[in-house]
Every structure is written in C-alpha cells, then in structure tokens.
C-alpha cells in the first residue's frame, strides 16, 4: 500500500514522472506480469526473426559461393577436352566443365546405404560446383575419396578411415577416405540417408565403371556478358547448348537446371514463415495481455485520473503519462528479451543450418531485424495499450470521482439460471455475478486464455498430426524393403532367386526409370533436378495394378486397373510438377530417350515418395528390351533386420542380380523425420509459449480484479464475512474463468489446428496433414487452465485475506 512507497528525493524529476515511477513500483506484481509477457513473446519472436535472417543470409551466401552449375546436361557419349573448349565459346555460356556421377552403395554397420560419387578430374579447376577442402590434399590419391562433411556422421568415417564400396559386379572394394570437403549445395547426408563423396576418375575404374565425363556443367551469362542466374535465360542457353550438341552428333538425354537456391531453402523459408506467424500470434497475445492488465490498472487509477484532471491535466496529458509508463515497461522488457532472443535465435539457426549443411556465422542481426524486434516489443504493445489508455483518460472528473456502478442487467439471465442450479451454495452465483460486473474485462480474459489455449492445442495437435500422417503414410506400404538392381533383371531369374530364400514371404517386382516431363511434340523439357540426384527427381514406375504391397489413398480419379493399358496415375508431387493436369488429359514424358504418352486416370497421395508417374506392368517393356523385366523388387520379410536384408542382397548378387541400392521402409521414416523434426520441436516450444502467455493473462486479470475490489472485500469482512469466504469466492471466479477459457480454447483449436496442419503439410510435402485432436494435449491444457486459475486466484485471495478491514476500507 501507500505506506510502503519509498520516497527518495526526486525533486529534479517532474511530478508526473515521479508518479509513473512510483505507480510502477507500487504495482510491481502486475508490471512484472506485463514485462514477463512482453519479454517472453519478444524473445520468441526475436529468436525466430534472428534465426530466419541468419539462415537466409548464410545459406544464400554459402550456396552461391559454391558457384553451382546453372545447368547440367547428360551427354551419354561423354565430353572430352576439345568438345568442352568448343562449348565454352557458345553464345550465352560463361564457363563449362565436364564430370561424372556414379551411384553405388556403401557398407555401414552391416547395411548398405546409397552412395553418390561426384567424379572430378584432377585437372578441374573447381570454378564451377566448387567445394571447400576441410581436411586432406585434393585431388584424392589414386582410388581414394573425399567425404562430404555431413556424410561423415552417417557413414561413421572420416579422413584416414576406409570405406567398403560396392563394385559394379557386386564385389566389394575398400576405399581410403583421403579427406573431407564441404559442399554447401548438397543436402545433409543424414537426412537423405545417402553418402556423398568426391573422387577422381581413378576410383571409377577401381569400382569397375567406365570412366566417362558424361555430365556437362555450364554457367550462363546474359547478352551483355554478365553472369546470369535468370531461370529463363539459363533454360534458353541450356536448350541451345543441347541443340548444338545434338546437331553436332552428341546425344543429350537430359537437361536439368535446378533453381538457384539450396534444395532445402524453399522448405526452410516457408516453414520459418509459419513459425514467424506463430511467434507474431504470441506477440499479439502478449500485447492483449498488456492491454488487459493495463486496463485493470487504469480502472484502479480512475479516481487519480479524475484528481489530475481537477488540477489541470488534459486528456492528452493523461494519455501521454500512461503511454510513457507503457513504453517504459515495454522498453525494459524488450531490452531483457534481446539476450535470450539472440542466443535462442542463433541456436535455432545453427540447428536448422545443420539441416541445410550450412555454417551459421554469428553476425549481428541487420537493421531491419533489430527494428522489427524493437518495433514489435514497444510499438505493438503501445498500439494495443492505447485503446484502454485513451478510454481511461477520457473519463470525466464526475465519473472518476463517483463510485463505480454495477449495471443491473449484467448477465441477469445467467445469474438467474445459476441461482436455480446452485441450490444452497451461493459461491458460483456470486462469482458469476462478479465476473459479469465487468463483462468487457471478463471477455478479454477469457479470450486471451482461449486464444493461448487454442494455439497451444493447435501446436501440439499439429505435432501429433505429423506423427499420425507419417504412420498412416508409411502404413500404405506393406513391404519391408525396396531393392533396386544395378541393371534390369529378368523377373523369372528374380523369382528363382527369391524362391530359394525363406526370408521373403512375398514380393513384387517393378520397373522404375528416370524420366523427364516432355512437351506434346516430344521436345525434352528442362528438368529441375539437383546434383544430389534426389531433390527435383521425376521417375516413371511400372507396377502391378493389383499390387498387394502399396495401397495409396486416391485423391482424384482411380488407381491403375488391369485391362486399362495406356493409363497413368500421378502422385501429388508429380501432379504438382506437371501443373496439376486434369483427369483424362495426356501425360507426356521422355524416358530413356523416348517420348511416351499416357492418359491420366488418377492422382494419389504418397508419403515419402518423389515425383512419380505410375503405369501398369508392361508399359515400359519396350524400353527394357522385352517383357518380364524389373529394375527393383519390393519384399516382405518377417525378420526385416538390416542383417537379413543384407543377406538377401548377397543372395541376389550371388544369383547374378547385383543391387544398386537397398531402402528399408524404416529408412523412409528416418529420412522424413530428419527433415522436419526441428520445426516440430520449435512449434511445440511456441505452443508452450502461448500457454504461458494465456496463463499469465489469467493471473493478471485475477490480481487486478481482487485489487480493484479491495474496499469491497473490506466491507464484506466488516459485516461478518470470513477471509475463507472471500478466498473461496475469488477462487470460484478464477475457476469459472479457467473453465470457460478451456471450453472456448477447445472450440477454437479445431479451426486453428486445421489451418496450421494444412499449411505445414502443404509446405513440407504438398499434402495437408490430417486433422488430429490430441486427447493428451486437451487434458494438459485443462490442467494448465485450472491450475493457473487456482494459483492466480488463490494468490490474489491470499493478498486480500492479509489486509485488515481498516486497510481494505481505506484502500484507494
């Protein structure tokens, strides 16, 4: 109370400034709640902004520093030095080099993982697709390799170790790891579940492959000779180079020109945008909390405002006074938030940077980010607080110095209904009546609690939806592993080999070939495949229409049917790549140098699948030189351990069916989870932040409500009410608010969850996540709402109980 104010001599300050300082000190509890809410929200918002800026800045710089090829042309006949020189002189070509890419397998802990080797001639100056050598001396020794640094963890090997690689004939080769490089243009190996290595042609020969620089990498310049990354210009130049090569007698199978950005950058950008939106919501909630708390404080100061007006203060003076107070609190809270925002932001950026395989430099945030953080902390708070400040400042002297009147009709019906239900206990009736005395504040508190709860539930629901979505998606695949062969094999030979194995209880063969979307006239379209060979890939798979091993959900049309040759079904990624064609239209692709056209009969949802066009078995026979051929097999194994799958691979290799890759279905889950786990974690953290702000709002509202009614409680005690009665009344008010907030949060969480889940799913994999309501989260939120209501109101009630009747009645 006023006795507790220390009046240090502050004669140099203006009295109105002194008032601000003392009011803040006197209301330290409420000010603390406001400051915590702002600081927590600004920390979250600032951290996301700082992380986003660092990620966007450093990933862009790192990716561009590699000077990735603007376009890569697949020239099966190879590009020798003399041809390369001619290509460098072609119009629009800024620079060119020729390399080779070999896909093989690497043995890790008894299991084979895909291994992609980038073969770089020792004479290559690394002007294009540059990589940094972190250890060892490039070029590699004869037959050795350099590992991309993100692959060292996946392969459990580093400089000085050796790896077991598979030769083309299925035999094994021990290869020395001569060093480690960083290629910022590659996605991390652990996410793609693929090893990446760099070597000279000597390794290619050791592995039994033909050494041939069949990948032509070019960079492009514009008409004035300046380097260009304009996608249209790149496509144009790549197309003209392909045409020139073809005219010169060099076949070109594929032209690919991926976007000039890291393969994960788009996904990271859009998901961080979603997080920014969540953080903004937290900020808005905090601002509402501040406005609500301030509104309560100002209501308690109404008489003082009236007094100031009687001694000459204008409405503007009062507004400036309390606006200054708000800005002071917001500024301190924002300053306090700066340090955690920085550390959390940089920590988050580093975490996500590891996903992108990018080093995050701890450079200070830019002026825009700093301005946004300060603006969010101070200006948003002030903007929201201005409404209650202006409302309070407009009070007339007569209103301010008169007693607060209760509207007779406030919630009369509800109170009457409660009276009927309540029987002898009047607590609920009295508590409801008290809450409805200030319907605007009650609605603000409930809305704050409900919004915090809804966003908390939405965050948790979305994280559960993610798990459910992956579980459901993977349950559509009832096989345990997919084994891809190094060369097409005859199904009869495969059947014979599998018949001898009791490890496989069921299997289906399929044909999967890389393809390119093509125009109706047969011209090859420029593809958007990244050098890792995974991102941006498009393939055609011939599969048994009556497959027992996959059961994808059909989004549009129907699945393949036996007896419907010429039909094609696209998964959602392929449909998006082809511009979402209508059912019944022709899908034209180039496969193995031939143009094929099928009629679209359906679109499916496929979790963990790259862009794929599905056709019926036999549709690709001509391309493989005859019927009953396969490039891969899906197997069902009762004991699908890595060892069992490896033994199966050995058995097939022994039957002259060497494998190129083995992908256990469990690996798909690991790969998917690795891509988004960190975002889900951040989403859950933001959800908890929302819950905290909601609970703080309730605590603040209860405290304000009790302080406002100090005099009233004193009168109640003076006429015989015990402290416990007053305490029970306050507790009941808090619990009613908590329950109403909980119910509203539950209702609001459904559309909020739908929105967040749908956005995250579409951004991440082109499919909306299912609407999942987490029972656990609902229970947790109920506990949080009731517990915070009980704690907040019991704290306020305890404060009220401590006051004597004299103190209560003389309170002003």
């Amino acid at each position, binding site marked *: 109370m006023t006795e507790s104010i220390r009046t240090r001599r502050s004669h140099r300050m203006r009295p109105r400034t002194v008032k601000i300082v003392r009011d803040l000190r006197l209301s330290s509890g409420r000010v603390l709640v406001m400051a915590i809410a702002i600081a927590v929200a600004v920390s979250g918002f600032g951290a996301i902004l700082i992380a986003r800026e660092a990620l966007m800045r450093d990933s862009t710089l790192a990716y561009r520093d590699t000077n990735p090829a603007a376009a890569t042309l697949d020239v099966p006949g190879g590009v020798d030095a003399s041809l390369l020189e001619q290509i460098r002189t072609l119009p629009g070509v800024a620079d060119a080099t020729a390399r080779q890419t070999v896909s093989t397998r690497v043995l890790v802990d008894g299991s084979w993982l895909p291994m992609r080797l980038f073969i770089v001639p020792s004479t290559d100056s690394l002007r294009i697709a540059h990589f940094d050598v972190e250890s060892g001396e490039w070029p590699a020794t004869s037959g050795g390799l350099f590992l991309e640094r993100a692959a060292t963890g996946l392969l459990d090997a580093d400089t000085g170790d050796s790896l077991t690689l598979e030769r083309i004939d299925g035999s094994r080769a021990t290869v020395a790891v001569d060093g480690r490089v960083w290629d910022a243009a590659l996605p991390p190996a652990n996410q793609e579940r693929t090893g990446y290595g760099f070597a000279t042609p000597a390794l290619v020969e050791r592995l039994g492959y033909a050494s041939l620089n069949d990948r032509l990498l070019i960079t492009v310049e514009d008409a004035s000779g300046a380097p260009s990354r304009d996608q249209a210009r790149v496509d144009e130049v790549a197309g003209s180079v392909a045409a020139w090569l073809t005219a010169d007698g060099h076949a070109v199978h594929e032209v690919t020109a991926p976007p000039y950005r890291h393969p994960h950058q788009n996904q990271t950008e859009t998901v961080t945008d979603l997080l920014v939106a969540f953080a903004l919501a937290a900020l808005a909630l905090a601002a509402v909390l501040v406005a609500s708390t301030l509104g309560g404080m100002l209501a308690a100061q109404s008489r003082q405002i009236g007094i100031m007006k*009687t001694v000459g203060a*204008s409405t503007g003076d009062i507004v400036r006074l309390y606006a200054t107070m708000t800005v002071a609190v917001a500024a301190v809270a924002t300053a306090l938030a700066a340090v955690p925002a920085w550390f959390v932001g940089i920590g988050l950026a580093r975490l996500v940077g590891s996903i992108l395989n990018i080093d995050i430099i701890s450079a200070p945030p830019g002026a825009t980010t700093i301005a946004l953080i300060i603006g969010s902390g101070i200006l948003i708070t002030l903007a929201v607080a201005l409404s209650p400040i202006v409302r309070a400042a407009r009070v007339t002297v007569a209103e301010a110095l008169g007693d607060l009147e209760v509207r007779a009709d406030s919630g009369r019906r509800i109170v009457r209904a409660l009276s009927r239900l309540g029987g002898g206990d009047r607590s609920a009736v009295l508590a409801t009546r008290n809450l409805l005395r200030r319907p605007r504040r009650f609605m603000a508190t409930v809305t704050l609690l409900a919004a915090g709860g809804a966003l908390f539930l939405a965050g948790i629901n979305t994280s559960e939806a993610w798990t459910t979505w992956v579980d459901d998606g993977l349950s559509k695949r009832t096989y345990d592993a997919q084994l891809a062969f190094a060369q097409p094999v005859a199904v009869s030979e495969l059947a014979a080999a599998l018949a001898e194995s009791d490890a496989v209880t069921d299997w289906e063969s399929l044909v999967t070939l890389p393809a390119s979307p093509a125009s109706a006239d047969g011209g090859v379209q420029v593809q958007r495949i990244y050098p890792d060979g995974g991102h941006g890939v498009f393939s055609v798979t011939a599969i048994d229409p009556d497959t027992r091993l996959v059961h994808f959900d059909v989004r549009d049309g129907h699945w393949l049917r036996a007896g419907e040759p010429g039909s094609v079904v696209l998964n959602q990624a392929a449909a998006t790549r082809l511009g979402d064609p209508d059912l019944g239209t022709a899908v034209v692709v180039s496969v193995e140098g031939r143009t094929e056209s099928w009629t679209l009969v359906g679109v499916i949802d496929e979790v963990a699948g790259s862009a794929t066009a599905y056709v019926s078995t036999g549709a690709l026979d001509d391309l493989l030189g005859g019927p009953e051929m396969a490039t891969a097999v899906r197997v069902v194994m009762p004991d699908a351990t890595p060892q069992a799958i490896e033994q199966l691979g050995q058995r097939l290799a022994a039957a002259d069916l060497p494998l190129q890759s083995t992908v256990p279905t469990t690996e798909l889950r690991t790969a998917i989870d690795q891509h988004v786990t960190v975002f889900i974690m951040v989403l859950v953290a933001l959800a908890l932040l929302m819950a905290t702000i909601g609970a703080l709002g309730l605590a603040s509202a209860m405290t304000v409500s009790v302080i406002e009614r100090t005099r009233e409680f004193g009168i109640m005690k003076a006429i015989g009410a015990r402290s416990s009665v007053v305490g029970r009344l306050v507790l009941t008010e808090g619990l009613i608010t908590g329950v109403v907030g909980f119910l509203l949060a539950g209702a609001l969480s459904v559309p909020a969850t739908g929105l967040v889940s749908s956005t995250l799913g579409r951004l991440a994999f082109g499919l909306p996540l299912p609407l999942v309501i987490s029972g656990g989260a609902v229970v947790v939120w109920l506990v949080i709402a009731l517990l915070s209501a009980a704690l907040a109101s019991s704290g306020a009630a305890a404060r009220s109980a401590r006051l004597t009747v004299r103190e209560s009645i003389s309170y002003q």
Partner: protein
Amino acid sequence: MSTAIIDARGISKVYPLPAGDFTALSDVDLRVEAGEFLAVVGRSGSGKTTLLNLLAGIDRATAGTVTIDGTELGTLSESRLARARGTSIGLVFQFFQLLPTLTVLENVMLPIDFAGGSTSAQRRTRALELLGRVDIAEQADKLPSTLSGGQQQRAAIARALANDPPVLLADEPTGNLDSATADSVLALFASLADSGKAVVMVTHDRDASGFASRILTMADGRVSTDMAVLA
C-alpha cells in the same frame, strides 16, 4: 460596479433517470466577486454540490452559462476545461483527494507541472512557499497517508493555490475534520478571501458558514436565500 469572477446565469441541471427526469438545479443565478467568501448551505440533495460541480466545470449545465474569470466554461472542450481548471480554479474536496503515491510537495507541484512553463526549481520554490503559507512546510517530503486529516486538507488547499487561481471552490472541506482543525481550515479560507480570492464553499455545517462573508441557502435545486454576513 465591480466585475464578478464567477458569473452563473440561469443554470439548470437535469439528470435523465429511468423513472423520469430529475432536476438537481433549476434556473440559478450567481455572481461572486473577488474577495468574497461564499458559503453554500442546504440540506442533503438541495443541489449545492451540483452547483459547485457546474462552477468547477466538473459537470456541464443542462441550461444557462457559467463564466469563470471571463471564460465561459460551456464552450470549452474537456481538455481546455481541464486547462482552465488548472489555471483559474482551485478545488478542495472533503476527502482531500491527494495522489497517494506523490509526496505532499509533489502533490502541490503537480498542477504547476500540468500548467507548464516553469522550471523544476520554480515549481519547487512555489510549492514550498505555499506549504509554508498553510503551515505544513515540514511535512513536504511525506506521503499524504502519513499526515493527519487537517494536514492533508491544508496540503490540498496548497495544491489548489498552486497556479494562483482567482477562484477557490471547496466541497465540504471540513466534513472529515474535527472541529478545532475545521476552524483553522475555515480561517485559512477566510484569509485567502481577504487576499482577493473568490472562495465558494459548499457545506452542510451551519457553524462553518460563520467564517463566510456571504451565505447562500439552497433548497430543492433553487436558491432560497442569499445574504451577506455583516462583520
């Protein structure tokens, strides 16, 4: 004829209530000149506080005009009204209405601050001078809650005089004081009137009116008697 500092003409105040309009003040004329100490007396509900609120610009008249020191209050916006109060009208209340978080000195400095145009040192000097004038200079750095009722009312009077207004309006200023303290406060009002202020005091205490130079009696929202007190 001397100029009236307070000039109220035909003022009425009607409150619309669910049960029908309630006339708190009906067609009252009042002129108060500098140096007058007017006591407004009457029973509870007679309209005396309503009259004071209209004179102070706390409430607006339903009809009629109120002119204070040459300024007609009815034409002013709320903010300009507040400014006018700060410079032309000093207000004293029954319950003192000091700001609890400011010291006595700071309470007195506050109106000077809102009026603007003074330095920190000027504000302080002026406030200390006023506190000395009401005999509580030694209480300057204390909070209002630590002072007696009489001291608080003196502090409130010092605050009302902060910007040297020509008009001092007091609403039951002795209603919360013991008789000895009340007498000293009333004597202070009388001396202020003697120094040239126009003092209007609403009171239900007939004895309090003994210090006034003029007594206006109200009943049912109208002036029933208005008479000068012979010295």
